């Protein structure tokens, strides 16, 4: 970087062209390049060899994740304004790297889940992998973007393929309905957000977050204050939708149920990570001077989101078809509420980077265990396509390891030992709320933790209950008669990865919690 800056300063001609740090932008670029490669290769690969595309995509995601390694020394930035080397559009700071890791690792687990789903449900391989990788590329770009235009583009690159992925189950009415619902509500949110961004641009004259932040403190014309305020509010609404915060959460359950299972998992983790990193960037980086507005607003949103999500999850009927995915969908809404708490707390404290770290740490924990839970759901869905909670009855007798893993994941989500990482991730979130003096929010969250425990533990208890009572009512083919189908390798790898990560993190929570103590932004 430094030679380029010198060059730019010395040579007036060179300053017209931006220099690009290709190493810094490698993670999203590799994902995007592999996406295109898969799409082109799909045309030439014979139908019998299509599974190969999946492994290409997986290798691409691994390569993209590995390309984060050279960036660890930190602080690389590129696409800077000529003459202003500190005002950049792409910054690979610790925050961006952590979220990129979460996105790429989450996409990798999703890809491992997808390998067999594609085979079983006969989904179009080329399109699927292209869409998944493109979405991952957008999601990886987002946490590193530092201007509003790049943010919006990254958000759309991450979202548009997701609509198509949700609707990929051709001929399935639920799937198309889910895609349409998702699409319409998402597009409405994007429109609102674009309006907000344009207001902000009009008021401040810049799209770069650092300049917007600066301009908002002394606006060129005080009469622009209303416009700027409206811009702040509208762009917040857009990101709140992506995080599925109440009252913008209605699309979640139907979308998750209609989508192929791995895509539901993808949306629940990467979709949320995208929304959160965007929300954090615009609030903490873009509008710090409006902290007294968005802080309380996000706190109310957090309380509302977790309550709505958990109460709805509590009311799920375990006998209803797809109740397992439905429950995970509502619980992900509840978890989004917890994730919002530190972001809200960041509006109250002097050092917001600290509070943001709690969200990041919680998101990492949530990513691992939620993908793990979805992986087990995918495993069960292979033999019980209805995927009701009651189908998990006696899972311990049929597949002891899978049952233990799911029990562990659910207790992590609930935040109870043996899910130590879940417990301490919640402790950091509580701690950020107490630190910010948001006692009421901490109490609301405490009540929610208890509500959530009820349904998580109920599901866990079902796993270990004897299957005999259910035999007469459901299960046309009992577990004994049906030959125990072998678990495919990719699915096993995904489950094992999530379980091992969860257990390692429970022993050494510092691995993710250190983000909660250092300033990330």
């Amino acid at each position: 970087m430094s030679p380029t800056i010198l060059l730019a300063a010395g040579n007036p001609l060179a300053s017209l062209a931006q220099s690009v740090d290709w190493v810094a932008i490698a993670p999203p670029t590799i994902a995007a390049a592999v996406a295109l490669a898969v799409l082109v290769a799909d045309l030439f690969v014979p139908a019998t060899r299509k599974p190969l595309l999946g492994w290409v995509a997986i290798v691409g995601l691994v390569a993209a994740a590995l390309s984060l390694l050279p960036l660890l020394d930190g602080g690389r930035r590129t696409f800077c304004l000529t003459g202003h080397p500190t005002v950049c559009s792409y910054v690979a700071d610790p925050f961006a790297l952590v979220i990129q890791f979460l996105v790429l690792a989450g996409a990798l687990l999703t890809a491992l889940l997808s390998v067999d789903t594609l085979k079983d449900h006969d989904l179009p391989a080329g399109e699927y992998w292209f869409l998944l990788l493109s979405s991952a590329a957008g999601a990886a770009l987002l946490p590193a973007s530092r201007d509003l235009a790049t943010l919006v583009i990254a958000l759309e690159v991450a979202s548009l393929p997701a609509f198509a992925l949700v609707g990929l189950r051709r001929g399935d009415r639920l799937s198309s309905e889910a895609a349409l619902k998702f699409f319409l509500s998402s597009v409405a949110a994007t429109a609102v957000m674009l309006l907000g961004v344009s207001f902000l641009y009009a008021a401040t004259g810049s799209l770069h977050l650092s300049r917007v932040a600066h301009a908002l403190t002394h606006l060129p014309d005080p009469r622009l204050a209303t416009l700027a305020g409206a811009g702040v509010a509208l762009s917040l609404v857009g990101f709140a939708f992506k995080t599925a915060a109440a009252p913008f959460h209605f699309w979640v359950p139907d979308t998750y149920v209609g989508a192929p299972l791995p895509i539901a998992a993808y949306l629940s983790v990467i979709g949320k990570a995208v929304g959160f990193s965007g929300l954090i960037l615009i609030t903490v980086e873009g509008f710090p001077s409006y902290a007294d507005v968005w802080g309380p607003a996000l706190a109310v949103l957090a309380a509302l989101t977790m309550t709505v999500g958990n109460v709805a999850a509590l009311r799920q009927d375990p006998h209803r078809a797809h109740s397992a995915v439905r429950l995970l969908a509502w619980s992900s809404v509840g978890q989004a509420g917890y994730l919002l708490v530190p972001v809200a707390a960041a509006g109250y404290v002097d050092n917001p980077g600290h509070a943001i770290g709690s969200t990041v740490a919680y998101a990492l924990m949530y990513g691992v265990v939620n993908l793990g839970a979805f992986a087990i759901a995918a495993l069960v869905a292979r033999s019980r396509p209805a995927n009701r909670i009651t189908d998990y009855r006696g899972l311990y007798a049929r597949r002891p390891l899978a049952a233990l893993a799911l029990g562990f994941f659910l207790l992590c989500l609930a935040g109870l030992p043996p899910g130590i990482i879940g417990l301490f991730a919640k402790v950091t979130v509580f701690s950020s709320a107490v630190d910010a003096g948001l006692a009421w929010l901490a109490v609301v969250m405490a009540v929610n933790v208890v509500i959530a425990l009820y349904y998580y533990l109920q599901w866990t208890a079902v796993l270990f209950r004897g299957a005999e009572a259910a035999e007469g009512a459901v299960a046309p083919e009992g577990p004994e008669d049906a030959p125990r189908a072998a678990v495919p390798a990719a699915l096993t790898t995904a489950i094992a990865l999530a379980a091992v990560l969860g257990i390692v993190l429970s022993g050494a929570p510092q691995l993710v919690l250190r983000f909660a103590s250092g300033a990330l932004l």
Partner: protein
Amino acid sequence: MNPTALQYLLAAVVGLPLLGAVAALLPSPPGLRGRNPDQAVLRHGVTVTGVVLAAALALAVGFDRGHPARMQATTDLSWIPALRIHLHLGVDGISLPLLVLTALLTFLCALYSYFAMPTGPSPKAFVALLLTLEAGTLATFAVLDLMLFFLAFEMVLIPMYFLIARWGGAGKQAAAWKFILYTLLGSVVMLLGLLLIGVKSGTFDMVALATDNGPKAQLSHTVQLLAVLAIGIGLAVKSPMWPLHSWLPDAHTAAPTVGSVLLAGVLLKMGTYGFVRIALPITPEGMHTFAPYLAAFAAIGIIYGSLACLALVRKGAAGDLKRLIAYSSVGHMGFVLLGIATMTPTGVNGALFANIAHGLITGLLFFMVGALKDRTGSTDLDALAGTTGAALYGRAPRFGGLLAFGAVASLGIPGLAGFWGEMLAMFGAFRPAAGLSRPAFLTFMVLAGLGTLLTAGYLLLVVRRVCMGGHLTAEAAPGEEPLAVEGPAVALPDLARHEYAAWSPLAALTVLAGLWPAALLGLTNPAVQQLLGGGN
């Protein structure tokens, strides 16, 4: 003993049950298979809890009794620097007796289950849960970091839930839910209080906090009030304090025998221990403000518990004996809370003594009631007693004698363990700490005294209805009848050998603690003086 050895002993006491729990889930290695897998895993449970008990006893032997106020066998490792959480372990005169009591009761439970496994799913999970429960309780008494204390506090929830829900009796699901939701709600609120202390003082270390050595200044009055309120609610649910006790009778009634024993014997102690270890030394000002309320609730609890028991013991009330002992626990724990609320060395020592005594006596009573249920098929007092009384003295003399012994010990007769704790607690209330309203505490003392009378009343009625009774029919020879016989006038199997093994240590310790209270008070008193004196 060498300090390093003690350190390892304490780490082993906390860590071994966890390792044992994992090992219980694995298939047993060749050579340890036993007669069948069930027997092997139950034997594994006895072995592990036995080793833990031996380690706890060795720890007690190696403990420097000359300085019980000093933390001994301490380990302090940084675990999660981000949250400033340290793996800080140590024992002093307050925690050591509780540690040994836990190890002892769990071992006796494992031993008892080896011979009388409760009906339910596989013993494998049972043993694993029992060991996890033991690890959680032992850790609660051994850790010196607020966050670890919370972790250990939570660790017992899941095993206890499954023990009740899977191996329990009638109404087990509802009771298990009530137990876990109640205690979780309490402990999450407690977490908020602990975090408040941590955030405001900059450390979670209990020893540093107790001696005001935190990096930041001492906690302000408001913070102390809020912290005590939040922490107090969590601990009061666990203890349990009236009116937050309503989970307890259901949980006890539904739980399997060993579940009840451990619930009453050690789990309730976690709450009162928390008051002594956290609320008294770390937030003395806040505790000072809330002490009269705590004492009032404790006194009401004493009266309420005894009245509930009296209602249950009445003829025709169809009272359940297990439920009755559960309600009597509410009363006994009321004495413990009253002792703590006086904030005097006398009262707190009494509370700690009553803690141990309650663990021994109620543990014994729950064991016996469980065994009685196995023998007669019911713990319904009316069904047991019939019109004249169950006549256990005649039908199973030794069993009846031991039950009467437990009941008499529980009512606090001088010479047995139940006496000293309650007397000292009331003594403390007679002259509470400076600044606390003496007339109020005198009232509570009178109420507590009334409670002892009522307690004596219902326990003697229990003895009357269960141990005494009508004529034994001549032809029924003792020991020949099968289990679960109808009607009061048939002989029952007397104490079996494994019952002797499991119960005689409890009975012996009850007598010992009653005759030689100094052994225990000598350990707790210096530590209590130090805690109340601001750690100096």
